[in-house]
């Protein structure tokens, strides 16, 4: 198996990159690679299969957020980070306790 190729970019010492900045950078590079590698390959076949079955398909980039506490797990998505976290927070609020039957 060939060795995986990765790019490492040294950030300037005085750059204060937040976790959000780094996430955006990671996503941008992932997107470039995705678009350059996946066009016309398997993803298009999957898309075509769904269109043939009369599905209206939208596939795009979005914020995703997830929360785990023991066996409890919730996920949410949103156009913005704020929206994703707001949706996630509402679902976690429903776990305040298990409740009685």
């Amino acid at each position, binding site marked *: 198996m060939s060795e995986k190729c990765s790019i490492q970019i040294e950030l300037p010492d005085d750059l204060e990159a937040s976790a959000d900045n780094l996430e955006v950078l990671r996503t941008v590079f992932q997107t470039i690679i995705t678009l350059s590698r996946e066009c016309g390959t398997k993803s298009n076949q999957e898309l075509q299969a769904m269109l043939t079955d009369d599905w209206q398909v939208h596939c795009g980039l979005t914020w995703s957020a997830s929360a785990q506490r023991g066996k409890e797990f919730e996920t949410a998505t949103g156009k913005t980070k704020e929206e994703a976290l707001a949706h996630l927070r*509402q679902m976690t609020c429903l776990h305040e*306790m298990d409740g009685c039957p």
Partner: protein
Amino acid sequence: MAYSNEVRDSFSKELDGIREAGLFKEERWIKSPQAADIEVEFPAGAEGKKVINFCANNYLGLSNHPDVVEAARIGLGTRGYGLSSVRFICGTQDIHGHLEHRLTEFLGTEDTLLFPSCMDANAGVFEAILGDQDIMIADRLVHASIVDGMRLCKAMRDTYKHSNMEHLEEKLQDHQDKRIRLIITDGVFSMDGDLAKLDEIVALAEKYDAMVFVDDSHASGFIGKTGRGTHEHCGVLSQIDIITTTLGKALGGASGGCVSGRKELVELCRQRARPYLFSNTVAPVIVSGAIKVLDLVSATTERRDKLEWNTKFWRDGLVKMGLDIKAGDSPIVPVMLYNAKLAQDMARDLYEEGIYVVGFFFPVVAKGQARIRTQLSAAHDQHHLEKGLEAFAKVADKYGILGKSKKEIKEMYGL
């Protein structure tokens, strides 16, 4: 995948983890019909012990009422044991239609659809009526089945602090841009026994153009002057858009549930609700029994009135002896102990005294809110209640908590 020793071990470890956390649930075998007096085999293999039951949802004492049992027997004879079908293929008998009609009348709604359980009703109703342009706004202490139903639905989700009308109003203001706003609440909350403020919720729904959903499982049959539910108690009969409830508690206690409400919404459930579409019909024996239950609760409020009297007697007795209970009027009466071990120890000692109750603690209830949840029934007679109070006094005295405040109990036992 083969069920290898490795896989078996991993599941066993999970179960060990549940045991170590003190959350392992053990079934107690009851060797008699459901009633105030029952015989219990616990632990497995032990000799049967006669105890007074204070933890059933048998609010009206109809689970083994002779008229209900006889009606069920007649139903079994005339309509058979099962239908081997979902409702919409060949699983609907005349009696299913009759029961739905009777429930509609009783609940004061426009139409009703039976489900195998209220858990199923709650799992199916939201997905059937709401889409991704809509918002569900739920009280944060709604029943677990509602949470599951909300997860299955594509509509957006939001919550409001338990019974906090200011917070609900804020949320309704936030979501004025949505197509439909659905406020979701239990009628009676099963942990504390408190009632939803349905009159205020309906007023907010009118002000902000929202619909109202109520799960009245712990209310149907006995809350309100004629037992129709929380909406009757709050003076908003016919103003609730969707009610779900169960036949598995006050209304006979067998199984089955329903969605009742605006006829278009019920019809959408008939067309789309997956637990209705893909589950077997409710068995004729249960339908026949449930029709008799509605005959009984519609003819007289005697049982509901007795339950009300029992509840007051029990609440007064606990308060007088110096125990800390959640205030309210419902027959769910939590005795607050705050400490999980104390709740477990007292429940065990009460069982030894012939009183069957269960301790609840985190994660079933919030941390530091451990309690013994007692539930009253019209099947209880005064001597049952007196014996129960006597046992509570004896056991509480043993643990030194009579007359102690929440702060004092916390100081004695911690959280």
